[in-house]
């Protein structure tokens, strides 16, 4: 009995992986991984690596957003003589999420804002398992970017999104649109690097701003019949000139206002 209670693992890396696309005619539920991180969080790069590994495994079904928010020690800009860690990656919405979801330590992540093993905010070791529970489910909501316009002269972005109920829904569902940027080269404290102060770390999926209010705009309310379609439009949203929209993406998701759970998410490049 004692030996049957011990599983020795000799080859710890999963062979193959990925998921079977199966029936491609039905809309599948995608997963939003919000990776709460900070430029002075020494263990956050390892968590970011787990996120990338999961993205390699699940492809477009897993959408990652790096939210620089949490304990101020890890995220606030520093006033160092050499200019290191001076960038402020925080956003007002990110700070609100960190407070609302009690992000008291980093790294932490939320996987479609759904509880896994009794917790909403998860260590990176749970992200894959939590995502695996959701990915492949039939979606109840479909999100489609109908149009994305990047106005380089005025440095604005506009988008039209349609959101369709694929089944009968009840409750209140809201849509949030993030603007994220990839490949920002800046300082990162990294336990796995030597020395740990890395001046040219490649920050991925960094949340830059919300195109919607922090808690989104309501798209469905009350009892919604299957096939109902609502539009969310954002016109001429002003962008910070320091942001490089060649690496910019929009991430739109719809969540249940009662439980916070995200039921669908989509991502698209800003500069197509």
């Amino acid at each position, binding site marked *: 009995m004692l030996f049957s209670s011990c599983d020795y693992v000799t080859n710890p890396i999963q062979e193959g992986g990925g998921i079977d696309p199966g029936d491609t005619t039905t809309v599948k539920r995608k997963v939003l991984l919000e990776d709460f991180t900070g430029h002075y969080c020494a263990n956050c790069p390892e968590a970011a690596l787990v996120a990338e590994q999961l993205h390699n495994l699940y492809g477009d079904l897993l959408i990652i957003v790096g939210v620089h928010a949490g304990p101020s020690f890890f995220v606030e800009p520093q006033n160092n003589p050499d200019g290191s860690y001076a960038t402020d990656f925080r956003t007002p919405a990110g700070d609100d999420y960190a407070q609302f979801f009690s992000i008291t330590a980093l790294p*932490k992540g939320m996987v479609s804002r759904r509880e896994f*093993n009794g917790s909403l905010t998860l260590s990176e*070791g749970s992200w894959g398992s939590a995502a695996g529970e959701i990915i492949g489910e039939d979606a109840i909501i479909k999100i489609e970017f109908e149009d994305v316009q990047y106005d380089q002269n005025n440095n604005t972005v506009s988008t039209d999104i349609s959101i369709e109920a694929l089944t009968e829904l009840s409750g209140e569902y809201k849509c949030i649109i993030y603007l994220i940027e990839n490949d920002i080269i800046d300082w990162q404290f990294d336990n796995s690097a030597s020395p740990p102060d890395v001046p040219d770390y490649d920050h991925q999926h960094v949340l830059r701003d919300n195109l919607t209010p922090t808690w989104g705009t309501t798209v469905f309310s009350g009892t919604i019949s299957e096939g109902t379609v609502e539009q969310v439009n954002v016109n001429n949203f002003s962008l910070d000139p320091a942001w490089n929209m060649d690496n910019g993406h929009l991430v739109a998701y719809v969540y249940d206002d009662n439980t916070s759970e995200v039921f669908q998410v989509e991502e698209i490049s800003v500069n197509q």
Partner: protein
Amino acid sequence: MWGSKLGLSSIRPFRLFNSFPFFLFLSVISLHTFGQSDPGEIHGNLNVDAQYYNEDSTIGATVPPEQMGINAWGNVIYTRGKFSAGLRFESYEPSMLGYPAGQPYSGTGIGYRYVSYKVDELEVTLGNFFEQFGSGMIFRAYEERGLGVDNAMDGVRLRYNAGKGLYLKGAVGRQRFGFEDGFTKGPGIVRAIDAELSMNELFPSLADNGKNITLGGSFVSKFQEDKDPLLVLPENVGSFAGRARYTNAKWNIFAEYAHKINDPNVQNDFIYKDGQGMVLQANYSIKGFAFGLGAHTYDNMSFQSDRAAPTGFDLNVNFLPPLTLPHTYNLPATLYPYATQPNGEVGFQGDLVYKFKKKSKLGGKYGTTIAINYASVFSLDSTAIPNDENLDGYKTNFFSPGDQMYFQDFNIKLHKKFKNKSELVLTYINMVYDIDVIQGKPGDPVIFADFAIVDYSIPLKKRHNLRIELQHLWTKQDKGNWITGLAEYTISPGWFFSILNQFNYGGPVDTKQINYPLGSVGYTKGGNRIQVNYGRQRAGIFCVGGVCRQVPAANGLSVSITSTF
């Protein structure tokens, strides 16, 4: 053991029929079961801690939206002969800031409930229970309320006295995780068995000589489903431990070794290396003299029933006993306490207590006691594995300390009594503290600190006592120097008044020179006690048994009420 954990050791009996209906109902069941001669007894206690918060940006104190926090616990236990049943109500509306250490607690409900009975040599517990095997290296379910750590089991426990000194225990269940209008449980199942043999019960001649040897062995396994898409995770993680203790009139010698098979988890960065630990302790004691020597090593011994538990405080299956002196004076206790490093450490400790005889040159008329303690803790002597395809992480030699010193504490305490029944305690502490490793503040330099503490207690008149405490901390690192002054006035048995102030100076930033005044009044009558505090609470660390939580800065009014029946 667990009864004392609940703080029930000193509570007084209460007649059954003065109680409220639930326990009347419970007792009816038991009366039906056991006959009607003895109605049994109900015991209970209540503990309420509440704080009203003020905004204080100077010290970084924040105010929650509710403006106050309340933690409340109430135990009610029914006992009748070999039968007992009980429960604990808990209320966090909301919990106080910084509490608990791990998974948040919220709402009101039942945090612990159990039924237990004993028939002949078999004791059965159903529901919640606390338990420990040996030093706890592979199994300890316990509660430490000050920390907000509670990993109680919920399941079944059997204890069996097989005779001839052989004691057997077995337990299975899941552990308490958080609290949301009642306790929640983690995903993993814990299975545990233990056997202990007391040799002097087997061989009575040993007992005649005042000697005893006990031998023990335990096996603990946790099960958690593997759903990970990237890694092949072990669903059943087993661990075993063996221990021996020798005691006679002067010596108490203990040794325990523990081993845990591959247990990739968030605390060890998902490495597959086996874990191991060893605890060695020898104490010698005769009248007026005692010394102790201890050593331990922990190598990859974090053991939680959820491999991805949100924090290191949640769902611990084991407990790693510390080998450093837990200081009680405010500055050393809350600024630089040592927290055990489960991923790896090697520690040593030696202590000596000597009492100078009365009427000797140093002993004076009423005797003098000197206590010297030294402890040091090092990293493991480990080497990372290149091209680590098996994800073993690193290699290390057993019980081999590395170059990095995490902690060192040399302290000496002199305790002298005087003719007028006053007492003087002088303490000096020299400490080396790696705040980066212990408190997770990367980049912060190692702290070299000296503490001097004077503690003088004077009886002023019958039942009136004044105690004065002066503490000073010198360091060039962290926030610089601190000075603490405390005056306590006690009128036995009812009243207690105290004024405390802490002042920080000599730090790198002038504006951080802050006073932290705090006034307290306490009143005790019968089984009830109330204490009210007003002032500033400095941000610090609170530790019990090498497990530490951050306590945030606070300003405001706090009330603590305890009551037993």
